[in-house]
């Protein structure tokens, strides 16, 4: 039987692994390559790697760290793919087909596209035709506004005014293979997923939905799997703070009747 996936999301800013809270505050967590090796050992089902390095103003302050440009982000990914053997999704700064190809060649299985899906109406359709839907993930950052669930782009700074359900159906019709559905309101709060949002989108879309934003305890994963039709549950911060985090999460889920891959710690 096909399993529900448990997916750590790693946020990379200027080459460093960071924690994010409501898309505004970012705290440095250290070396991303070491983090990935740990997550792999704990039997993560997949990894999502998002480069959230912002504009030059932010980068200049970190010039001395030697990681600021996009090529070193890809360099990090390339080193990771030599040591970690699981599916990998890479997102951030993808503007054209060349960007996608470049990421696939260094070991990505999928790419996650957010802002460009909005900026260029045809991009998802063209990308899905070129590389296949299976490697095109559309990432949606959703925030509650007076209008309802609104899709934000540009790292959560720009309100597109598009309704989340409308947008997810549109992206699916254009050929998105999966949707990474993130709640800006819940980001980094540890209060749990926006279950209502997940339920609404996952009931209407046929492509797999990956839930993100707000997990503070293992039970939040179970809640999403029990109450909604999401295919996968993802989180960032919670996986960084606990030793053997993914293993413990999967053990909890598997003991509580969820359909996840056995938490075997790779003992074969």
């Amino acid at each position, binding site marked *: *039987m*096909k*399993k529900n*996936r448990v997916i750590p999301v790693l946020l990379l800013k200027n080459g460093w692994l960071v924690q994010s809270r409501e898309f505004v505050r970012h705290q440095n967590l250290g070396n991303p390559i070491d983090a990935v090796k740990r997550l*792999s050992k704990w*039997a993560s*089902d997949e990894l999502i790697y998002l480069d959230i390095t912002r504009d030059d103003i932010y980068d200049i302050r970190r010039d001395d760290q030697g990681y600021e440009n996009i090529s070193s982000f890809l360099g990090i990914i390339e080193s990771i*793919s*030599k*040591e970690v*053997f*699981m*599916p990998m999704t890479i997102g951030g700064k993808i503007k054209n087909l060349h960007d996608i190809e470049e990421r*696939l*060649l*260094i*070991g990505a*299985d999928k790419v996650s596209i957010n802002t460009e899906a909005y900026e260029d109406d045809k991009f998802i359709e063209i990308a899905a035709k070129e590389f*296949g*839907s*299976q490697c095109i993930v559309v990432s949606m950052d959703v925030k509650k506004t007076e209008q309802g669930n609104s899709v934000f782009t540009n790292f959560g700074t720009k309100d597109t005014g598009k309704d989340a359900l409308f947008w997810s159906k549109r992206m699916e019709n254009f050929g998105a*293979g*999966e949707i990474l559905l993130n709640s800006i309101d819940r980001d980094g709060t540890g209060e749990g997923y926006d279950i209502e949002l997940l339920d609404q989108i996952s009931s209407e879309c*046929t*492509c*797999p939905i990956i839930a993100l934003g707000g997990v503070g305890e293992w039970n939040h994963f179970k809640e999403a799997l029990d109450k909604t039709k999401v*295919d*996968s549950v993802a989180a960032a911060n919670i996986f960084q703070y606990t030793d053997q985090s993914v293993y413990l999460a999967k053990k909890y889920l598997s003991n509580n009747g969820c359909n996840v*891959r*056995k938490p*075997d710690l*790779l*003992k*074969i």
Partner: protein
Amino acid sequence: MEMMKKNVCILDYGSGNVGSVNNLLAFIGIESLISNKPDDIKGSTHLILPGVGSFGSAMEKMSENLPINLIEEEVIHNKKPFLGICVGMQVLANFGFEFGQHEGLGWIDGTVDLIEVGNNPLPHIGWNNVDATRESKLMNGLNEINDFYFVNSFCFNAKNKEDILAETTYHQKFTSVIGKENIFGVQFHPEKSQGAGQKIIKNFLEY
């Protein structure tokens, strides 16, 4: 007993990312190279055919870039162990029906057809169980932990039941591992399947 030194030739026909298979072999300490040169193919102890893309385009690229006759000589006549991955498994069939009808290598009798999935989405993406249908060296030790990572819309329908080594259920059962003497094929991606993937590759190298 001294083990014969293994060296793997990953057949290079210009199809997507063959790097991850090579990375996996390096990680488990096996000498390997990505090549389409006759000397490298003849000099290797094992052959791996990775595959990304559709059946027809894979066959087309293979006939342009690989010495197929030499490979057939090595595999069919000299019985060199061979493993096809994903589309690399599918091209072992007589025919594939992705974007029209295409002729395959025909090393294992069968056809490659769209999986019947009912209301489930295609492609079939994610971790799924691979259940052995009979004992084989390839699936040795993989009864308990047998989740592998899949990305496929098509599957191998083997003509002879004895060529089927394992099955996977997605709406209904499809063949996920085939084997006939020294020729093996897996529908999933061992190079993305963590410990289970490394185990099956090691099993193949023991053959």
